[in-house]
């Protein structure tokens, strides 16, 4: 049984826009799954359909084996959603929002209050429990939505851009929290624009573009496809960069060199040539996030299926 199964899922909006063109996707229980794609690719539409906020045109959705068309109550009971936009009543207090959400899932108020305390403490919101939600900072509002989504302890948690606009320190603490939730057995599906986030957290990834899944694999195998590595070298001395015909080398400024090597090449010959020209390499770092690089290439090239369909 899959945690989530999408079968030939299509969505055509009333204005004619075809947001999803028959996507198939399977997420296994316990997975930490990344759903990536550029703006307008169809990620939020897919999540909207799974969460029953958007009507599908055709296809099938199953959450832990419960079909959304025939076993809606069971399917919804298994799902928690952290949406991209803040969608709570700004006049209600933090505690009211979380406790009421538990009520919508049928949890008695006593249990709801106990769980609210647990999750608000875990997300450092307990001190703010009596504050109106509109007075919270952006990061607190994001954490409030996570607490709200977890209050009924769903088996599948979907987070749509959960760390958008969140500072780096808070983002990392949210990552730790999500890792713990996942380790305790909750399947997590994450959409994000921070590819470092997906690379750090997710075990499997699907890339969606123009309403189609163009890649669906593990992060490891995806990164294996990356055939080149780019480095930034901090250099000193020498006036002219020696010719390195086998490598792509670009001087960014007096002290910085951009070098790209393929999987078959190594940096030794680059260092040797630079040393011969009297140039010292003081330090070196990876130029860019590897997944980000791969992601951009994939979107530029399109999927193998798309390429086959092209005349």
């Amino acid at each position: 049984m899959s945690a989530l199964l999408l079968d030939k899922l299509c969505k055509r909006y009333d204005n004619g826009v075809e947001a999803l063109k028959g996507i198939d996707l399977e997420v296994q229980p316990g997975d930490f799954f990344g759903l990536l794609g550029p703006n307008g690719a169809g990620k939020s539409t897919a999540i909207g359909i799974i969460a029953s906020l958007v009507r599908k045109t055709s296809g099938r959705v199953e959450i832990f084996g419960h079909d959304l068309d025939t076993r809606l109550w069971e399917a919804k009971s298994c799902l928690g959603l952290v949406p991209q936009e803040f969608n709570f009543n700004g006049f209600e207090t933090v505690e009211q929002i979380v406790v009421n959400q538990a009520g919508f899932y049928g949890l008695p108020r006593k249990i709801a209050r106990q769980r609210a305390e647990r999750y608000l403490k875990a997300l450092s919101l307990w001190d703010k429990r009596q504050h109106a939600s509109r007075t919270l900072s952006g990061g607190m509002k994001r954490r409030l939505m996570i607490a709200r989504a977890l209050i009924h302890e769903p088996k599948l948690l979907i987070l749509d851009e959960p760390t958008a606009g969140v500072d780096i320190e808070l983002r990392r603490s949210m990552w730790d929290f999500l890792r713990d939730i996942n380790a305790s057995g909750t399947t997590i599906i994450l959409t994000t624009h921070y590819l470092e986030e997906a690379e750090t957290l997710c075990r499997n990834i699907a890339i969606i573009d123009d309403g189609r899944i163009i890649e669906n694999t593990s992060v490891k195998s995806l990164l294996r496809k990356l055939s080149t590595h780019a480095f930034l070298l901090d250099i000193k001395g020498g006036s002219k960069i020696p010719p390195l015909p086998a490598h792509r080398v670009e001087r960014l400024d007096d002290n910085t060199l951009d070098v790209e090597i393929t999987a078959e090449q190594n940096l030794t010959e680059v260092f040797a040539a630079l040393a011969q020209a009297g140039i010292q390499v003081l330090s070196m770092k990876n130029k860019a996030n590897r997944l980000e690089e791969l992601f951009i290439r994939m979107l530029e090239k399109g999927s193998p299926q798309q390429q086959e369909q092209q005349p």
Partner: protein
Amino acid sequence: MNGRPSQWRANLVSLQTIAYKETNRFLRIWQQTLLPPAITMTLYLVIFGNLIGSRIGEMQGYSYIEFIVPGVIMTAVITSSYANVVSSFFGAKFQRFIEEILVSPTSNLVVLLGYLAGGVGRGLLVGVIVLAISQLFTDLQIHNLAITVSVVVLTAVLFSLGGFINAIFARKFDDISIVPTFILTPLTYLGGVFYSIDLLPAFWQKVSLANPILYMVNAFRYGILGHSDIDIGVAYAVILLFIALLGGLALLLLRAGVGLRS
């Protein structure tokens, strides 16, 4: 979900939650929800009932203020129950926190009943406040408590349903004031609140019979005074018919996701 309750029990808890949330909302902002109708209806009683009414004399064997009190209470109940649901549900839609309920397993019927609970609660509370104020002007004796209570509750349900449907179709704040301003208020004033339809020419009496509010005002007046221009059975039938029609429509709209799901 750990310790998952049964579907029936979960829906019951969800209904209590929505009802509690809605009641809490109108009580929290009582200056906007309870005070204005109390002031407006007091002015009606002072100006129309007391000052002008004392010069009008009797209406259908009752002093004028006695005659209008049931209608004034009903007007307050109608406008309050409608306004509560239309503003609350549209506000939840507009600010998107209705999604809290839409993603949950709460059934459409429970969503509807929960919002109706808020509308009926506010309508009845306003009705009680106006009734209490009216005691300052006249000594009302309730003729039939069962009819009085059942008619006011059914009317509050009916107009809460109206507010709910209005909120479903509304896309902007202007849309939630059109129906109350151009339909509800004229129908209420022409619904026999301030006069008996026996005073109208035969033609306008027949036209008045097409106004559903006339039936509610008269049935309520019968409950309090024991007098009605309309047969009480017909009045109940009309109210229940409209509740069935609007209730069915509201559930159909919820099921289709009109105005809620893209």
